[in-house]
Structure formats: C-alpha cells, structure tokens
C-alpha cells in the first residue's frame, strides 16, 4: 500500500495524452539538434537561484531553487566523536571475517569511515523511513564518502582519503557529519539533482572549528568561529589550479531520447526518455599530470525506479505485443545502446564538458 501511495505522489507523471507524448518524443529524438519544450539546448540547465550560509546555527548550509519552483535547503552539522577501535575488543585469531573486520576498523582510525557521514532527506508527503528518501540519501551519501579513489600517494596534499580522511582528527577522535536535506516544495520533478547540488553547495560552505591541540591529544578547538577552516579547503593562493582541489561530488540526471543525450530533463522529458541515468562525479584529483579527464566518474545508476517513467512497464504488459502506430506514444522497451551510454559519459565528463561547467558554476556562488 505504501508503495502505491509513493508511486502516485512521487512519480508526478504529467497527464499527457499518448499523442502529446509521441510529439514530445519525436522532437526530442530529432537527430543532431533536439527541440526541447522550453527551448533549451541539450546541455543547458534551467536557471536556478542559489545561496549559501543561510542557516547561522549550522556549520554550513545552502539553498537552491529551480525555476520550476522546487527548492531545497541543506544544513550540515558536525560533532566530535570518539573513534571506537573494534580491534581492541575483538579476538583476532580464528575467524577470517573477524580479522578482516579488525583490519578495517584499524584502518578506519586513520582513513576514516563511511558511517561518519549521516544523511537524512525530508520530502513533503513522505515518512522518513519511506523508500524514496532512504534511497536518495544513501545514493548521495555513497557518492560522498566514496569519493576517495586510490590516490593516497599524490592526493595527500589536499585531502588525503577524501571526505572520510578529512573527518579524522586523530587516532582516537573524529568528526561526525550530519547532513540534513529538506525539500521545501512538492517533488515536481525527480529531486535527486536538486538535492545533490544543494548538498554540494552546503558542503562547500561548511567549516569546522580550528584544531588547537596537536597529535594524539584530546581535541581542543579555537573558540573563534572566524578561525574555523573549510571542510573542503579553498584555494589559498591565486595561481593554484582550482581544478585540482577536492570537491564534493555532484549527481546529475541525464536522459537519452533516441540518439540524443539531454541534461537536466524536465518532468515531461523524463516521461518519454529511453533511459534515465544519474551520474555522480567529482574532480579527479589525479589530474594534476594534465590528463584529459578532469573529472572522475563515481557511479552511474539507473536513476529512477522503473515505475516512475512511462516506459517502465513490465515485460508482460499488454502493450508490449501491440504494433507501433506512428503518432501514438508507446513506451520504449529494452536497454540502452552502448554508444548512447558512451556519449552520455563523454558529454558529462570530458574536459570543458557539462560536469566541469556545473562545478565551476557552483564554485562561483559566493560563500560568505
């Protein structure tokens, strides 16, 4: 029953007739230059308003509003916590799993642990244990704590171990981050990109009190907030290349219609998409050698549960057997073409591509 309600309120499938859908599909699928209902180019984003540091009581916060009226607020709070070393209490001799667990926890003391970042998403009309908020939160959190890569050798200069590593204070203490995401409006379109962008912006503005103690002492902090340091360090010198700085990941939604790859799809566009993909990426901190890949793909997902698109009907649906009639919308079936998928990735991640543009744009939001 709950999934029923969820589907009805989240999908927000526009009530378009099969003819309208078919028209939309055709125009979006036009080879080379698709025509979008609002006249945007395929890689153009809808205008958005953003500001950061709007909640004085938090360590960092941001608000982003899309032109369609959806907006979200994200607040980040940090708390000091004692690192519990499980290896102290476990007997590490017999069970292979135990040994593994112990090693893991030991490395957690230096490398950080994913559970130190907690994320909760509140969407109007949903309980906090409903599938959608939990699914979204986990997706955002995973890309956030996963943004490490095996770059311990040269990534050290900025943030060794990524976000997880940044949260380590010393062997016995760490920060715990609470990221609270609040979607202010009804989820008119699929909320993931909005939430991701807002989270990104909030994290950029997040500061942690400055540590005064050194080494393995119990942490002791500067009481001056002005001395607090950014969670994601800012470029201190002008000539340092901003593209080398570690940044929180961004998740974007991409759809394919025919051969075309379309970014920031609107609700209607999602309805007729062949495939919907959520791409999480971040700056590739390995890129200082000047490779052509400034961005790093973290994960791709079939961003949307099948029930939310019109082409998500099961294989045994009656429509599957019917003949395709021109002018009448039929949900597509089958997978996504490899070439289209490659095109999607390329457009998003290439140098000077959409991804970089988005990151640069977010960086530009004045962090007061």
């Amino acid at each position: 029953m709950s999934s029923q309600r969820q589907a009805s309120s989240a999908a927000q499938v526009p009530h378009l007739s099969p003819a309208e859908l078919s028209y939309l599909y055709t125009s979006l699928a036009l080879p080379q230059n698709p025509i979008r209902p609002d006249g945007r180019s395929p890689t153009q984003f809808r205008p958005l308003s953003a500001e950061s540091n709007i909640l004085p009581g938090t360590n960092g916060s941001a608000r982003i509003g899309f032109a369609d009226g959806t907006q979200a607020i994200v607040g980040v709070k940090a708390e000091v916590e004692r690192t519990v070393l499980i290896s102290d209490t476990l007997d590490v001799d017999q069970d292979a799993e135990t040994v593994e667990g112990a090693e893991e926890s030991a490395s957690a003391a230096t490398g950080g642990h994913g559970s130190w970042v907690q994320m909760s998403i509140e969407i109007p009309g949903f309980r906090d244990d409903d599938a959608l908020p939990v699914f979204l939160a986990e997706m955002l959190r995973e890309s956030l704590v996963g943004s490490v890569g095996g770059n311990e050798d040269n990534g050290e200069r900025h943030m060794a171990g990524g976000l997880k590593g940044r949260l380590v204070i010393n062997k016995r203490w760490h920060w715990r981050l609470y990221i609270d995401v609040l979607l202010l409006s009804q989820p008119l379109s699929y909320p993931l990109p909005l939430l991701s962008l807002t989270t990104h912006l909030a994290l950029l503005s997040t500061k942690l009190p400055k540590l005064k103690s050194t080494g393995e002492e119990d942490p002791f902090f500067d009481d001056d907030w002005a001395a607090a340091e950014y969670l994601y360090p800012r470029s201190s010198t002008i000539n340092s290349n901003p593209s080398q700085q570690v940044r929180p990941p961004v998740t974007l939604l991409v759809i394919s219609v025919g051969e075309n790859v379309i970014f920031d799809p609107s609700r209607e566009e999602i309805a007729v998409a062949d495939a919907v993909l959520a791409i999480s990426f971040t700056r590739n901190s390995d890129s200082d050698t000047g490779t052509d890949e400034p961005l790093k793909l973290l994960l791709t997902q079939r961003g949307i549960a099948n029930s939310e698109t019109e082409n998500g009907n099961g294989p045994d649906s009656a429509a599957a057997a019917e003949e395709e009639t021109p002018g009448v919308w039929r949900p597509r079936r089958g997978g996504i073409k490899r070439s289209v998928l490659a095109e999607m990735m390329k457009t998003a991640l290439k140098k000077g591509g959409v991804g970089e543009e988005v990151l640069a744009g977010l960086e530009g939001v004045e962090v007061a």
Partner: protein
Amino acid sequence: MKSLRREFSSNPEAANVASKVFVRSTKSGKVQKIVRELYLRQDIPCSSKLCSHCPSIAPADANGNITPFVLSDRPAGTKAFPRGHYLVPDTNALLNGMDLCEHTGAFYDVIILQTVLEELRNQSLPLYNRLIALIKTDEKRFYLFFNEFRLETHVRREPDESINDRNDRAVRAVAKWYDEHLKATVKKGKKEKTIPAIVVITDDKENLRKAKEENVTALSLASYVDGLEDSAKLLDMISEAREARDAKGSVRGELFYPEYYSMSKLQTGLRAGNLHQGIFNVSPYNYQEGSVNVPAFDKSLLILGRDNSNRAISGDTVVVEVLPKDQWKSPSTKIMDEEAVTRNENADAEDTEAVVTDRERQALQEEVKLAHGKNSEGKPQPTARVVGVIKRNWRQYVGHVDSTSTGSLAASGRRLQTVFVLPMDKKVPKIRLRTRQAGDLVGERILVTIDAWDRDSRYPSGHFIRSLGQLETKEAETEALLLEHDVQYKPFSKAILDCLPAEGHDWKVPASKEDKGWKGRRDLRDLLICSIDPPGCQDIDDALHARPLPNGNFEVGVHIADVSHFVKPNNPMDVEASVRGSTVYLVDKRIDMLPHLLGTDLCSLKPYVERYAFSVIWEVTPDAEIVSSDFTKSVIRSREAFSYERAQLRIDDPSQTDELTQSMRTLLKFSKILRQKRYDAGALNLASPEVRIEADADEVGDPLADVKTKAMLATNSLVEEFMLLANITVASKIYESFSQIALLRRHATPPPQNFEDLINQLSKKRNMRLDVSSSGALANSLDQCVDPKNPFFNTLVRILATRCMTSAEYFCAGAHAESEFRHYGLASPIYTHFTSPIRRYADLLVHRQLASAIGYEGEDGHAKVEGISTRSKLEDICRNINYRHRNAQFAGRASIEYYVGQALKARGEKMAAGGADQGVNEEGYVMRVFENGVVVFVPRFGIEGVVRLEDFMLPGESSSWSVTERRELAAHRSTEFDPEEYTLRVEEKGHEAERNVVVELFQRVQVNVSSVKEEGRGAGKRRVRILITGTTDNTK
C-alpha cells in the same frame, strides 16, 4: 540569482540586529557553534548626572522610576584634566590595577564596559567578582555601561581583526561616543566648563597610538597614576604581571622552570590516567617538600624540590606526573626553612640565580642519600612533578618585608627597588615585590598579592596592597590573623542591621498568649531551667532542665536559643551569616556570625528573662534509657546562668537542696551514664593541645598566669553529653523527614595507613600496640598507652592519633550512602549540629529543618517551608561552612599562640629590667625527630616548636642566650640521626665525647621557652624559641 537573505545594506531595520558567533567546547567533549543575536537599542543611558537627555529615555520600572544615575556631575579633576574626568579602563588596566580601583583615594567615576567586564571574567574570576562588588557599591561611582547593546557603541568585528583589537576598538568607540554625547546633552548653562574629559586607560601601545589618531584621550595606567596625588603609594599597587610579561620576549632568556603542558594534553593525560589532579600541599616543616593527594593512590604523592613543584603554591589545584621508580624517595627527615636556607639572596639580582641554589641542592642530596640507605619508616614513596596548574588558589598574603633585601639605600625617597616579602604562612614562598616605599614598609605587617610566576623568575612576583600597621602591634597582628584565615570581620552593613527587630534591646516575648508569636509554642516558663557555660559567656546557646515524673521516670530537656525565629531565610542577615559560617573566637576578640543584638541579647538564653527556645525533651528511665523524645518550639525562663565552676560547687555543696540543684544533680547522674554508654559503644576520647587564656585586665601580675590549660570539670561533660544526645536525636529526626536534604555531620573512618607511622613509632619506642581496626578498638588501645613515669604520655599519644584522622565535615544526606553517615569519633551512626545556632550557621539550618519536620508553622505560616532547600544549594553551603569552620579553629589557635608569644615577651621585658632574659623553664615532649632538629610540644602553653641544632644546650656548654651567639653554634654541631630508633644525637665537633645530648621520640625534656627577637633580619620579628636544656627519664 536572487537572494532571500537579509542584507544589512538593503534593510534599514537590520542595523539594530547583529549576531555574535563563536565555538563552544562543552565538558563532555562536544564542540558547538553558538550564534547569538543581538538586538541593539538606543535607550541605554549614559548615567551621567550631567546629561539632560538620557533621563528621558532611560527604561523605567513598573513604578515609572529609572535607576539612579551613577556618574557624578562634578567628577574629580587632576592636573591634566582640570575640568574633571570619567575613566574608561580596558581589560588589562583592570587586571593590573584592580587594587587601585578599590583604593579610596582615587579612581572615582569609572565607566566599566560590558565588553571589558566579560573579557575580565574570562581571564580572572576573582577579579571579576571584585569588580562586580565595586559596581554595586555607591561610593566609588562605577557604572556598568552595556556598550554592546547600544546601537552607537556596538562594534562589529572586521574581517581579519583579532578579538583583542576589536575590543580595544570598542573601548575607543565608547570614549568617543561619551565625549560627543556629553557635549550635546550637558544641561544648559553648565556648558563648556564642566564637560568632563573621557580618559581611556590602557597599557596597549597600539591602542594608545590608535586613540591618538582618533582623537581619543588615552593614557597608560602608570602615566595616569603618576599624575595623581600620593602616586608613590598608588604606583606600588599596580600588578607586576604585566611588566613581567612585557619583559618576557626580551633579553631575560634563562628559564628556570619547565613549561606547563597544554590544556588539551593535560585533559588527555587525566582521562587516560597518566596524569593526576589534586591540591598541592606544602609540608609545614620543609618548604621544599610538597604532597598531592590524588584519588588513584592511597598515600599522597611526594613532590620534592622546586624543580618538581614547578611554581605551584600551596593550595593550587595542580596536575602531576608520577616520576620513574628510581626517583622515588622517602619523605624528608629534615627541617628546612626557606628563610634560613635562602637567607642572603638579593631580590634585584636576577641573572645569577638558578632555581636550585647549590645550598638547596646539597640539602636535597643528603635526603636522597638517606632514602637509598637504611629505609625503615621511609620506604621510598612515589614522587611526582607538577606539569600543569588547573586552578591557582592565590589569595592575598600577609607578610613583612625582608629587611636584608632592601639594600642600603632603603630610605632614599621614591627609588623603585625590588624587595622580598616573607609571608606569614611558611608554606608560601617569598614574594618579589617592586616598591617605591621600601624604607617605609620595613617593620610593617603588609598585605600583598601574587600576580604571576613566570618561568624565568625564581620567585613569584606580586604587588603591595596595604599596610596593616607596625609589626607586633595588637591591631596589625589581629587583622593579619583574620586575613590569613579568611575571616570576614567587616562590621555588619546597614542592610543587615535592618533585618533586626525594630524594638532593639527592648524586644520581649509577647505577654499575651494570643499573640502570633505564641503560635505553635509550648509554654515552658514554669520549668526550672538553667544554663551552664564558660565564665563570662554572653551568647548562651543552650539551657537544661530535669524533673522527676510521676511514673518514676525523668523528664530531661535541652533548650536551644531559637535563632531561626529572628533570622529569616535569604534576607541579608541570613546571607551574611551563611557566608561567615561561624563565630570566630580570638583571645581578646570575638568575630560574631550574627549581629550583637541577637547573639548576646535577644537569642541568648539569659537568666531571669523570657526567651524563645527550641526544646528537645526526653523521657528517660532512671538508667538513662530513652523512652521517648519530643521536639517543640517553646518559651522558657532560665532560672540561673552558671559557670562550670559555680555549677560544680553548687552540686558538690550538700547544704544546697533546692529543686534547681537537685535537677542539676539528676542531670549530672544521667550524663555520667550516657558518657559511659558512649565509651562502651566505642567513642574516642581525643585530645588536642588546648590552653585557655583568661585575659584579666590586671597589668601587674605575671602575664603568663593567664595561660591555663583547660580543666575538665564534671559539669563540662554534663553539658557536653546532653548536647551530643540532642544532636543525635535531632539528626535522626531530620533524616527521617528529609532523606535527601537533611544537613548532617560525619566523621569518616580514617584509612588505616594514616596511622602507620604512629603505630611504628609506638611499637619501636614503647612496645605498645595501636589497634585501629575500629574506633572502639582504637579507644581501648589508646587507654593502654600509659607510661607510669610520664603521665602526659597518654595525652601526647592521643594528640598524635587525632592528627592521623580526617576532620569531621558537614554534608547533605543525599550526598552519601547511609552507611557513610557514621561519626567515627563519637561512635554514633548519625550526627548533626543543633545546639549552637548563635555561633554556627549549620545549627541554624538544622533548626529550620527540624521546624519543618515537626510541622511548626511560625508566625506567618512560612516556617514550614523554610527548612526545605535544594540539594545543590545545601551542598554549596556545606562546602563553605566546612571551610569556615576549619578556618575559625585555625584562627582561634593562632590567636592563642600569638597571645602566648606576647605574654612571654611581656614577661621577658619585665625580667630584662633586672638582668638578662632567662625565659621560662618548662617540661616538653618530643613529638617528631628530624635529622637536624626535633619538634617539641610544651603542654603548659599548648605550643609546639621546632628545636634546631643550635638550640640544644649541651652539657658543659657556657650558656649564652642571644640569638646571634647561638646561631654561630650551629656550625660547630654535628648530629647522628637514627631514623629507625627515632633518636637524634647532637654533639659539638671536637668534643663529641663529653658534649653531647641524645633525644628520642616521646621523651620528656626540660625546655626553656622565651620570646626572642630575630636579629640581623626582619626587623622586630619575634618568634617563640624553645631551648632543650636537659633530658629526663630516658627510658631506653
């Protein structure tokens, strides 16, 4: 992009909203970002009586009155500011000059900024409290200006501006605003001539410079004071700390002490158990030996030498680190007196000194040798070193200037020189003092305070506060004594006296029983009640009666002055009494807890008049078994006030057969039974070296005749037994009613290791055993410690045993488990203080609790709830009264000691008229044996004193009395100390065979007691000297 955020530029209203952001670390380790919003206002007055504008805008209370303005319309002028001036000190000026602010000669009309006050609180809580007290008094005209809340003077922190710079800017902004504000609003007609200058006092050079740029008058503290009258005296009162800090960066490079650990390192260590926190105590016999009691160890940790004590002063809360085992030592067996060891140091000569002078090092080495040698009593104990100070417990110290440190040019005018001040308290190191009045201060009792103790300074530096008067004068010494023991001796303020009954001495118990005062009171006026007290007692707390009942039993009553009727909770009188905690008895002075009128008249259960009382009445069988007990508020009329002696005489006189005497005999009979019962239950009969001074006014007689050891009469214990019984009965009653907040008194069972030394000594020297397994066992074994040839020996052992115990303390019932309530000394499972409410605050609280427990409503029906209080508040009170109680005892003892010294001096002077001062020959007992001297107790005067090598009279030695002559002798003496046998053999070098004397622990010795003037140093300073002239009954 459009922003919804409030922008200060876009919103005209936003100017009066500001926020303050900071990081707060909580005790539990949480780190929080705190945001406070400030709403700025314009109705905060300038509080100058000159201002014509502010009275109209200042916020009024419900009656339409505004707070009276503080700053004078005719502020004092100086040479530089003839039109008068208001002062605006910054935080550092207050830190360094708080004593100046309190001085009555200068510093009037001062504007204290909220910014400064808050900053001061963070830096020094005691100074903050003193400043608050100043602001509260009217006469100094200190005004607290809430500059952060006033729109015009609120200062927003600029980016990259340090918090200090911001606060300095706030101070300047206020000065500027005041200046402009007063110019604009000064009442017409008074214009121009009377506008006072606004003077910022700051020692920050940068601030002074910026002030000049901004056209704000600013002066450094020293240069401002320099322009005042009497500046020499005032300049001395500026704290040293600042100058020391200034000099730190410069040439003086040598650091004598290790640096303290950082706060976070200390916290980590404490939590991990590597470091320990405790209160630093210095041994009274050896200034280089300290100890810290920490919960982790049974015995306290030793801290030897200045290096290890690392600038801690007795009383500080310190963090210590245990030293490796090879550095463990036994406690010192040597008497070391700072004055003696560091006699000739020059206070000015900084550079040549090392932390441990060679002489000190030598002294320490000898000890180590000893520890490594034959160790019997002294098995090495864990030692530790101080690595951090959590809380300084510095106070003001009474002392005198070491005259040898003043230099030859002492008398020459205002030359600034450094002198040493020797504090009265031997546990406190000498204090370096920079003064311009060294010449005047020599020979005076002075009050100084410690400002700082930096790593590059061997001694703490401090500054002068005031002089108490000439050394040895009664006034100066009495005040010194009160200050040293933190006794509040200021006269009661008007607010307190206003709480007294309006009738004054004419107050009477209402005649009509219909009067509200009689509500809930029983009429006991027909009982034959009498009081028995020391002679001349004015504050009579207690009275007694006994009468036979028809059923063959007896009714016994204890009646206690009903102080709680007159002292209502939380009025100024009650608050003052709770601060004072107890009345302090000095030889010739009494510092009352309650105003005179109550203590010696209205509450005092004087004979022949009706008084309110709180009565405890028992029905007892002829065998003194208690059948029932009853508590009631009452009205009594005491028939007679006896002294102990007179009561004893009357009881002993067979011709007296009146009812009153009979009832006293009954009481005496019962008291004897009660006493026996108590001892059977295991109560201890403890002893303390007490003497009593009967200060008769006769000038002719021998002053020493006034010094009397306390005689125990049967009537003393009569009163004592019934008071104990009343206290115990009341304790059970209030605990029954208030299981959490009953105010009780406990005496913890002392840990057996406290007695280790004494047990060792007794078994070695006298082959006696001390069983400390329980108080009963201890009482029994103490009874066995008798030496037939030495009647005082038993008392001596009791005195020493008492010192091994913990002291009794007040506590709140909820703070301990019921099994911990025990009073060890009295062998009672529960105990409290009920019987002396005139002189002890605890008793007053117990009265209130008991009144609530029995449902007494009082005149206004409020009494029922008066006894009820929150536990945390009670715990605060307990802490204070425990502290005051102890101090009152110390002050009383010190007063007697001083009196004995004076009596000896007076006698000496009398004798000196007829020849040399020969002192008084008395008997003494050896209490402790050190390597270079012994401690002797003289029961006749109740004093104990250190006998140093030179003060042993060897056989065949030509007798020389003067201090200087004797001091020379020390160099010719050698000693043999046997720590296992507790003996000390003193010989004269070269004549070892014939000129020697052996003393041992517990031995009775002949001593000569006299008061001598320390010659060659500390002008006029006297001490009681004890010479050992011979030994007797060497039992070994």
